[in-house]
């Protein structure tokens, strides 16, 4: 039996009824990996031996009734390689962390371990999560399973591909400007960025601390809700994690959105969006209306500046966060340098890739004496305007809809030499991070060239409920069942 496209909730039922074993699931997943990983490069490191022995242990625990089968018991999960796993190399797809072995688990990993999950491997990404195509990886690009000549999106390219191609059942990614939702859109799966602070960032290697959030990549909305149940919640190790009640996210998997007030963001359905993408999103909007949603257009004028605000704030925070990589305490070190300064400079020049250095430079410039007010502080003021515009929109609407990505997957190499054009890939997702909102991407259909198109559903702060309700209804109405040909 081929299990690699099963959902976690389907496997859970089969495990409960003793119809299959964890070992079978893990063997299926690795058989699939052996078959296609050469073409996809979704993993930086695989943990096959460890996974098989864990599966055996978990099978014993289940058969002796020592544990209850929880939502992710025995489920093979891929983890983006910027999430720390104790005693397992965590590279951020960077040369500078090529040999870094964390001495602790990220909080999200501890939480998954409480379910007895199975780590498939550490998944590929853009270096330090900076990129929209997974081409900025020291370990080579991950490829889109719908067309391996195309990018899977980024920065969570690897974890997304692993789920889309059946190399893992679910995955965890991180999203700073769209890094979960944009690849989910380009690969035809579900990706969720929770409200800023819903999930502890402890053990997530920091890129831009006011924007970063960990979230699930899954085959359907039900698995997404189940994963949110596990990873959300306050953590004393992350003072930015919210001390709010965590609802049962699975209770929002409803069949009805009658009366849901739905706003369609005018600025993100304009000329910059590929006509095929617009059409698919429009079809989903019509379905929402047919199901009793109250749909209206809404304008968020300050979105015009979101990309610019992001490309000041994110690099500024990154330049500060990445100053810790200096060759002193961990990671790569240039050993030829004779003085400390020389060691810092050569270590960083050799350890970081081109895009990371570019962003450190932008950030350092924007924070430097004489430019701080014009760039960084000004950007934070315009960010307030964007937040205010969203607040106004959520006075009238429960959720906002837009495309997740302005285009379908582009060719590898197509945008890599033109940073600004690459940055435009995140035009629909970036505003959501700037305002700290929760948002999901679900598949809305395929283009004529059989490439996935994603629909983004955005909720107000801590209103994941409305996002999941709308997503679960639209998922059913859209009925996306296609799988990549690989």
């Amino acid at each position, binding site marked *: 039996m081929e299990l690699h496209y099963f959902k976690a909730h389907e496997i859970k039922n089969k495990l409960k009824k003793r119809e299959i074993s964890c070992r079978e699931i893990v063997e299926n997943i690795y058989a699939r990996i052996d078959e296609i990983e050469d073409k996809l490069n979704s993993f930086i490191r695989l943990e096959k031996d460890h996974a098989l022995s864990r599966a055996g242990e978990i099978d014993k625990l289940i058969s002796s009734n020592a544990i209850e089968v929880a939502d992710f018991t025995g489920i093979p999960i891929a983890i983006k390689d910027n999430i720390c796993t104790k005693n397992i190399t965590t590279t951020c797809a960077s040369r500078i962390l090529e*040999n870094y072995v964390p001495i602790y688990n990220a909080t999200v990993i501890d939480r998954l371990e409480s379910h007895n999950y199975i780590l498939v491997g550490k998944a590929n990404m853009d270096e330090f999560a900076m990129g929209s195509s997974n081409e900025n990886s020291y370990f080579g690009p991950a490829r889109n399973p719908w067309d391996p000549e195309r990018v899977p999106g980024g920065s969570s390219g690897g974890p997304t591909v692993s789920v889309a191609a059946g190399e893992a059942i679910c995955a965890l990614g991180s999203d700073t400007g769209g890094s979960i939702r944009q690849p989910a859109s380009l690969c035809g799966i579900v990706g969720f960025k929770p409200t800023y602070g819903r999930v502890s960032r402890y053990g997530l290697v920091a890129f831009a601390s006011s924007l970063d959030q960990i979230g699930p990549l899954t085959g359907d909305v039900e698995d997404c809700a189940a994963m949110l149940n596990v990873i959300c919640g306050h953590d004393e190790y992350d003072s930015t994690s919210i001390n709010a009640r965590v609802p049962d996210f699975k209770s929002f998997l409803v069949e009805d959105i009658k009366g849901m007030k739905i706003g369609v963001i005018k600025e993100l359905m304009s000329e910059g969006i590929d006509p095929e993408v617009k059409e698919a999103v429009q079809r989903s909007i019509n379905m929402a209306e047919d199901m009793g949603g109250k749909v209206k257009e809404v304008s968020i004028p300050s979105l015009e*500046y979101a990309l*610019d605000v992001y*490309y000041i704030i994110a690099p500024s925070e990154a330049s500060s966060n990445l100053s810790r990589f200096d060759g002193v*305490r961990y990671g790569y070190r240039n050993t030829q340098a004779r003085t*400390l300064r020389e060691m810092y400079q050569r270590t960083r020049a050799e350890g970081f890739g081109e895009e990371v250095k570019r962003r*450190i430079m932008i950030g350092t410039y924007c924070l430097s004496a004489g430019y701080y007010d014009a760039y960084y502080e*000004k950007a934070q003021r315009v*960010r307030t305007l964007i937040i205010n515009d969203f607040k106004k929109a959520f006075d009238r609407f429960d959720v906002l809809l837009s495309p997740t990505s302005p285009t379908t997957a582009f060719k590898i190499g197509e945008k890599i030499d033109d940073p600004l054009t690459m940055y435009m890939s995140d035009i629909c997702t970036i505003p959501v991070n700037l305002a700290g909102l929760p948002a999901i991407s679900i598949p809305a259909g395929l283009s004529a060239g059989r490439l996935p198109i994603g629909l983004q559903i955005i909720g107000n702060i801590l209103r994941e409920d409305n996002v999941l309700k709308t997503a679960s209804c639209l998922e059913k109405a859209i009925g996306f069942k296609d799988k990549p040909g690989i």
Partner: protein
Amino acid sequence: MERISKDDVKHVAKLAELEFDEKDVGKITSQLDRILDHVAKISRVDTEGIPPTSHVLDVKNVFREDEAKQSVTQEAALKNAPDEENQGFKVPKID
């Protein structure tokens, strides 16, 4: 208008503890110039009386009791050290 010169780039590289060879300085200068030119359009926005965002949620400072607890051991802390001596991180001489 040029927003950033090659000399600026060399200065910023120093602040960031990075090194670029001459050929790369030219490339990164023109890339940064284009990016900064694009993002600088926010200067047009009227932000009179608008405070800068410090946090997306209405969160104030988070306090806790200052209690001493066991954290990582010295051995664990040194596990990833590129070089060590006498249970400390060893670095080249400070110039």
